[in-house]
């Protein structure tokens, strides 16, 4: 249990007032239009969405999760966090294409890329899925905050779950995405500063880098200092094939849209950037900062390991980074540290409240229920949706006990079977809405079967995660490839319009030829002659 001094309370209260008022200040901008409420008017310089990318993906459960993998695996554990590298290619490929589409959400993009009933079904499906998923994410980061507060103050979990998300909702309801992104900027700075301070403090507490290395080596655990300490090609708990699979998922996934669960919040940041260039740099820089943060955390957790090498319970060593802060920072700074944890928490909460509301408002209410709705009405619907998401997250949060298990399954269910179709929809003109829709449905079935049901009934053994990925990818392909070829291609008018607007990369030759024939693009041979 932690006892706060006057200075600690001072830091916390000042910070909360500062954060809420800085968000509410943008009330007038947020209510100008639906574009302002959900995309800050599409006018942000790259560093604002970049800081939001960073702040959003630094949640209260992130240090818990990273502490767990680094304590267990040593430096090689950073590869578990390397999934964020999908932004490396995405920043210059799918980000560029998506920004040019101008779609508010990924669900809306489906009706620009595809046409007819299939496109509408996809839009409704992805919008519904994202409303659910954002509520789910809010629940799991909320309960992580509940656990942190329980660890610190002995509060029941529900207090931490409800209190800070509700405070955050004040500025999200008032100013929409303007409030989110402006608060994210200051929260990002505070969070990064504290991550730096606590990590270096932890390293110093362990006696510095040399002492950490000496201690770990003397324990006979020198392998923990090697980022490439594989346990074999396919054997052990860190095989080479897992590493290879992770690299493929993370790096090649950048060509697609929706290959990673984080694509959906990033899509909002991409559209809020003022130009294509700003969108690209925001995604690249935001994720680069996440990579830096992960490395800082990794060294701090190694320091923690050198201090406490014999912790066996996962729930104990998962709190490593928090323990470094609360056990080693001097009195007075503890409140600042806790304020930064609140910053880390609410930057994620604010994003998912506004993002989930954007799908509920723009895709479900506006597109399907009331297409003629005015901007004023849509902003109010956005606020009501925000409130419903907040209340729903409390219910989800109270149902989740083991954060890591839920997190890994949610990531898996989102990536495995639809990973390749999410790339194909971007790079291959012939891939149609029925193919993509069937891959989603197949993935939901296969992921439950392969990960939960069949192992439970001992029909198949519990498979390593990398094998689950490849199996689900192959099984999914057996469904969506035939579906694609057995159904007609998308309407050529829609494809041409999409191509001229977005200029996708990959296999689009028939569409390009048609665009040239219609005089919408200069013919390639004509350009060559001019050159």
């Amino acid at each position, binding site marked *: 249990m932690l006892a706060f001094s006057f200075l600690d309370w001072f830091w916390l209260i000042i910070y909360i007032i500062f954060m809420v008022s800085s968000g509410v200040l943008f009330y007038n901008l947020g209510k100008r239009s639906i574009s302002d409420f959900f995309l800050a008017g599409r006018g942000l310089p790259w560093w604002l969405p970049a800081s939001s990318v960073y702040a959003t993906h630094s949640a209260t459960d992130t240090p818990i999760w990273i502490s767990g993998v680094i304590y267990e695996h040593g*430096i090689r554990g*950073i590869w578990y966090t*390397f999934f964020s*590298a999908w932004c*490396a*290619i995405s*920043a*210059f*490929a799918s980000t*560029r294409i998506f920004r*040019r589409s*101008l*779609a508010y959400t990924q669900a*809306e993009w489906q*009706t*620009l890329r595809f046409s007819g009933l299939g496109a509408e079904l996809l839009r409704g499906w992805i919008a519904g899925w994202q409303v659910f998923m954002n509520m789910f994410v809010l629940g799991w980061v909320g309960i992580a905050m509940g656990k942190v507060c329980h660890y610190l103050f002995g509060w029941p979990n529900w207090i931490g779950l409800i209190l800070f998300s509700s405070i955050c909702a004040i500025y999200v309801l008032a100013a929409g995405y303007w409030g989110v992104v402006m608060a994210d900027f200051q929260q990002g700075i505070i969070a990064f500063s504290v991550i730096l301070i606590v990590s270096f403090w932890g*390293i110093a507490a362990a006696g510095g*880098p*040399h002492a*950490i*290395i000496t201690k770990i080596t003397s324990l006979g655990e020198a392998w923990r*200092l090697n*980022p490439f300490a594989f346990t074999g090609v396919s054997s052990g708990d860190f095989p080479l094939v897992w590493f290879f699979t992770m690299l493929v998922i*993370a*790096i090649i996934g*950048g060509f697609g849209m929706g290959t990673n669960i984080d694509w959906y919040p990033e899509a909002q940041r991409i559209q809020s950037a003022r*130009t*294509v*260039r*700003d969108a*690209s*740099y925001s995604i*690249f820089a935001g*994720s*680069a900062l996440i*990579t*830096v943060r*992960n*490395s*800082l955390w*990794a*060294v701090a957790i*190694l320091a923690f390991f050198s201090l406490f090498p014999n912790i066996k319970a996962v729930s104990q060593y998962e709190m490593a980074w928090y323990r470094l802060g609360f056990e080693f920072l001097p009195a007075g700074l503890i409140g600042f540290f806790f304020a930064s944890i609140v910053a880390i928490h609410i930057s994620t909460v604010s994003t998912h409240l506004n993002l989930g509301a954007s799908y509920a408002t*723009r895709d479900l209410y*506006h*597109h399907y229920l009331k*297409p*003629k709705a005015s901007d004023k009405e849509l902003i109010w619907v956005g606020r009501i949706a925000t409130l419903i998401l907040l209340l729903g997250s409390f219910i989800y949060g109270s149902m989740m006990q083991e954060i890591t298990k839920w997190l890994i399954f949610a990531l898996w269910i989102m990536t495995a079977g639809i990973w390749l179709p999410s790339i194909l929809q971007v790079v291959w003109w012939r891939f149609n809405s029925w193919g993509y829709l069937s891959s989603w449905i197949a993935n939901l079935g296969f992921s439950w079967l392969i990960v939960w049901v069949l192992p439970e009934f001992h029909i198949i053994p519990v498979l390593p995660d990398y094998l689950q990925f490849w199996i689900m990818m192959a099984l999914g392909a057996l469904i969506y490839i035939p579906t694609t070829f057995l159904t007609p291609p998308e309407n050529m008018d829609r494809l041409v*319009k999409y191509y001229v*607007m977005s*200029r996708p*990369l990959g296999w689009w030759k028939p569409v390009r030829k048609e665009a040239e024939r219609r005089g919408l693009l*200069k013919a390639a041979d004509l*350009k060559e002659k001019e050159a």
Partner: protein
Amino acid sequence: MALFKKKWTPEEADAWTKEDYITFILSPLIYLCIAVGLVLALLLISYGWIILGIGIILLIIMIKIIDPKLKAISEDYEVKQKKYLDDLEKISRWEE
């Protein structure tokens, strides 16, 4: 003739060219160098600093290669954006 183009017409910039493909290679390498280099550098392991340094050099090279193209794409696209936004609203309101 320069190895990489610095002046782009809007039509040239719209096409996917070698500058993009090189960026696709450099960008993940930069992330790899940051991830590994920074951890090792913070532990004061000398080759960590070298890897981190390589990452920073690659970052500068990548920006030099891709930035002129991104600028050209952005300038051209912002002109067309207004019409595209009108079309987007028509689709959302079932007017198209």
